[in-house]
């Protein structure tokens, strides 16, 4: 799961708690992540990106996933604002090994 925290003012970092819910063969499983903190991208201080959130799946099976996250964004101005978001619907994804 990728999370992007996009602000209208420069941020120092974003801190989120995230979870992925998976439905596979009727079983609903949840994967919760410890609080993750990501600094603003140097080239774009409005944005922080989380790209290391993943959960195991069974190779060859298709499962559907939905992700949610909530936390805080710490702005350069010193303000701390709550943020939250969710993928709006379940995404079907095949479990396979890929390489870019």
């Amino acid at each position, binding site marked *: 799961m990728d999370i992007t925290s996009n602000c209208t003012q420069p941020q120092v970092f974003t801190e989120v708690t995230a979870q992925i819910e998976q439905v596979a*063969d009727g079983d*609903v499983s949840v994967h919760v992540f410890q609080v993750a903190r990501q600094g603003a991208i140097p080239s774009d201080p409005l944005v922080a990106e989380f790209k290391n959130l993943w*959960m195991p799946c069974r190779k060859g099976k298709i499962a559907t996933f939905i992700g949610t996250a909530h936390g805080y964004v710490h702005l350069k101005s010193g303000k701390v604002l709550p943020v939250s978001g969710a993928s709006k619907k379940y995404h079907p994804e095949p479990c396979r090994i890929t390489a870019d």
Partner: protein
Amino acid sequence: MSLFEQYLTYGNHIYQEEKISLYRYLLISQAKRYKDDAIQLLNEKKLIRLIANGEINYLIKSRKVSYTPRKIGSLAFNDNIRELDLGVFKRRKISKLVRFFAQAEVDVLSNYPIGSDTSLPENGFGYLAYPYYDLNYYSRGKGKIIGLFKMLQSKDDELLKKLLAS
């Protein structure tokens, strides 16, 4: 090494249908320890137990039991993973706690296996939304009555037989 000890090393490679066999195995093989732990937890309101490469911190607040897990040696506990209302009657509380312990141990052993690479960063904690002690597990969330029928229809547990025999 027994079959169960092998499963302590498999982590997230354990299939969902194997986890319920491990749960049933733990209920049988650890019945005495779980009962003793339940009495201790009811008296002291908190309890720490280890399984595989994980640590489980149980807590009773008001009438509810919850647990938080962490990898052995890790500084931070995860958030509460599960919570269960124990009710008011002591015998019922003990039987609910016994099932809660078995569920927690299955959750933790499949996240923190023995021999896992400690240099790898932790990647959260995965668990089934419906625990095995809840009939909703059998009905996939479609209610306890359907769950009861599905549970009664469930097939023989071959892995459980192997676990008990090994």
